């Protein structure tokens, strides 16, 4: 068994009762700003026509993708992945440019206006590092949220994944999310993954700024190289100056 941990969430919508204890736990744990949330319980509402009705509740949060677009979007690496797979935001390093927020296909991020930084589920790493479960998982009244080491076949999450067919929230984009669902999730939710366009500033940076500066510096270096070659070739006179 590998010693490298790979944390992931397993969520059983069948057990979610939409009580929102997780939302409050998360808010309390991280003092999430009023009007914002790091995690959700999504629902499509009551489906069907009276009296034949159904409703699914889908706990939702950052998917801690292995191929996380937010990490590639962050110019500085303030968003990064820990060795154990948790996708993190270094609040000290984040300047709140919002490129990651734009890049996330799950819309799992928001901007903390007070702090001026991006914010999202971080897997409660401070709790996890102490051996506790993330706040939402620990308090989940229905037992719908599980968290653990996917590399450990004995972990609760691995066993849950083996016990049932699992799905991940993937359609036109596959960013290899590490949140597994034990029930097919009803589609049509705006937060399910969709490909994101880069911002105009990002496009300018990539398409104009990078080639432009490369060209300028390249030309300068080339010019000086020629001059240097000439200098070597021509030698110099003491009384030139």
């Amino acid at each position, binding site marked *: 068994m590998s010693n490298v941990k790979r944390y992931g969430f397993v969520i059983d919508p069948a057990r979610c009762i939409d009580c929102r204890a997780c939302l409050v736990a998360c808010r309390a744990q991280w003092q999430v700003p009023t009007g914002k949330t790091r995690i959700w319980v999504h629902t499509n509402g009551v489906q069907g026509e009276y009296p034949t*009705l159904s409703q699914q509740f889908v706990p939702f949060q950052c998917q801690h993708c292995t191929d996380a677009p937010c990490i590639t979007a962050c110019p500085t690496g303030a968003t990064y992945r820990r060795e154990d797979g948790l996708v993190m935001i270094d609040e000290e390093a984040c300047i709140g440019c919002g490129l990651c927020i734009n890049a996330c296909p799950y819309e799992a991020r928001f901007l903390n206006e007070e702090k001026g930084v991006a914010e999202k589920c971080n897997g409660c790493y401070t709790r996890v590092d102490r051996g506790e479960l993330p706040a939402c998982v620990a308090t989940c009244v229905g037992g719908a949220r599980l968290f653990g080491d996917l590399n450990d076949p004995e972990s609760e999450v691995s066993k849950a994944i083996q016990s049932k067919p699992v799905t991940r929230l993937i359609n036109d984009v596959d960013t290899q999310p590490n949140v597994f669902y034990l029930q097919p999730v009803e589609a049509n939710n705006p937060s399910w993954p969709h490909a994101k366009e880069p911002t105009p500033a990002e496009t300018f940076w990539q398409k104009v700024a990078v080639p432009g500066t490369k060209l300028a510096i390249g030309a300068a270096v080339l010019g000086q190289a020629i001059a240097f070659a000439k200098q070597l070739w021509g030698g110099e006179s003491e009384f030139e100056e």
Partner: protein
Amino acid sequence: MIDYNKSPNLVTRRNFLKMAGLAAAGVAAGQMGLFKVSPAVAADGVDHLPGPLSDAVVPSLCEMCVWRCGLLAKVTDGRIVKLDGNPASSHSLGKLCARGQSGFMTTYDPDRVLFPLIRVGERGGGRFRRATWEEALDVTAEKMLAIKDQYGPEAMVFSSTHNLSQVQFENLLNGFGSPNYGTQRSLCFNAMVTAFLLTYGVEEPARNYANADYILLTGRNLMEAISTSETFHLTEAISRGAKLVVLDPRFTKTAAKAHEWIPIRPGTDLAFHLALIHVIVTEQLGDCDFVKQYTVGCEELPQAIAEYTPAWAAAITGVPAETIDRIAREFASHGHKSMAHPGWRTSNFINSFQTERAIATLNAIVGNILKPDEGCLIANGASEAAGLGKPPQPPYPRIGALRLDGVPWQYPLVPLKLGIFQNIRDAILTGQPYQAHGWFIARQNPILSIPDRPKTIEAFHKMDFIVDVDILMNDTAWYADVVLPEASYLERYDPLHVLDGKIWLRQPTIQPLGEAKSALWIYKQLGERLGLGDYFQYADEEDYIRQQLAPLGVSFEELKQNGYVELPGPAKERPAEPVFNTPSGKVEIYSAALANAGFPGFPTWDAPPEPAANEFYLLTGKVAQHTQMATQNNPYLAQVTDDPRLWLNASVAAEKSIHTGDTVLVTSPIGSAEVEALVTQAIRPDCLYLTPGFGHRSKGLRTAYNWGVSDSDLHVTYTDPVSGGQALSQTFVTVEKIPA
């Protein structure tokens, strides 16, 4: 002076929530409130506690509802930063629900009352002045003694809601000599408790979901009316493959988890259950020989329920006869692994008592209550007292006066401790059999909880003196003459709690904010001023608990450290044979007590009133984020609460051209309310549902003020003659769109 009307801080909920966010960031709760922070309070509003309470995990007990989950409070710099469930608690299982998670924000609610207040100007005018504890207690005692001298002790009404300090509250009222004790019980579970006491001899049988393969929930919305462990055990059972059938006129979140949702006509659960009993008994699907040993009335039951066929029930309930027949067979086929849940808040119709009797009978005839180890209901639980000590006290004075609630002189079968709260209110208005003059209220909000709010307010205005003990300026405090600020559950000691073989301690996790004090302290101070000092023989809260622990030889320090201790002594073995604390010692399907009181001895159909053609049933219920009317001001819960709206069925809405978000006028026989509509498929077309607990009128509650409407403005007061239970779903209303 504090004038809540003029408070510049009376802000909209949205703005307020921003402030609450600041509070979470560490701004002093005291400074945010309406009061000037006294020099006695530290600059950050929270004194740092010495020793183990600082930067520590402090175990205690939750009190966001009455389930009493064990909790672990994470405290940093004398401030609670997070609450977690205590895994050692059989009620919490390491989890806290949304309310429990948000609990510390009630403690840090900027609207906390942090100093004693004495009313200025007219009652209900929202103007108070800050008083010292000395003055507030002196004034209270003086007024109470004046009422006692002039009208007798019975002229003081005492009311309080289920809590751990209740034992000392009861000392106060019993020592004072008043028979008039109002609790929330008749508004909640009188029907269930009375029926199960009469049938099984137990207030409420315990549920064992591990043994349940087939679960019938009748209006028991466990996914929204959350009792953390029970809700978890139910989801476990469903996950394991148990079948869940939910009877509810509304598609609740519990219904969303059910295998079968039966939107039965309100008030007809009784007919449904009688028909189930009919099928099982007449076709002998139950374990009759076995059941006979433990029951009274089993032989006569077939005749008693002969007419209650599925076809008969179908006409009443609107549920097809085949469905009823099938469910009866399914229920019987699982035998003692089938559970018909007793319910909890069963204050629906005046026939709810009979419904509960039918549920008790249904469980008995499949034997689930008769096999303590294999069945899924348990009648004989361990005694709660469990050998705990108590400070010594003299006997109570003899009480000669009749009870204002009519128990037992008008309601012979209502258990004395349950009482009928709404009757006290009505007796205040009628002055019969005598006039009450004072009201002592603790941790209770009768203005919102008793049906017919205008009547309750009128009753308040008839009082000479009202004192209220609470932590918030809620609607009841708003009408009080003296408000005594209690320490929140995270700031105080309470008497011990015994649960599942453990003694649990509620202890302060931080020092009380402002000048808030524990109930044990307040009642003692008041008791001494009333000349009842002998009923409060403890030096302080810790001394009270030490006296409780004394006979058990348990160390208080160990209890403080872990939050609980195992009950000493050998574990009580559950008797192999079921024990029923009824007159016959058996399950009383036929109750002689009922028959003697002039009520049917067997579970019997009792037709509920029905709405007229243009009327609707007005249903109440529960949301998972709130406890009755106590938590709406919590800023964290406000963040996860759906706006309270009036549900109505889409087909009805289409007829009336009502759309979600429209304002509609709901009119009942006692009043009307304007409320936002929610058009949904998730309710019967003949029903409306109003999210309960909202519609607070106190401007001292800046989050909850004017948020939604209260069904107490619409509910008519109907009382079940057997159990005294209030019939909350028996109010019929009309609904019309208000043109924009």
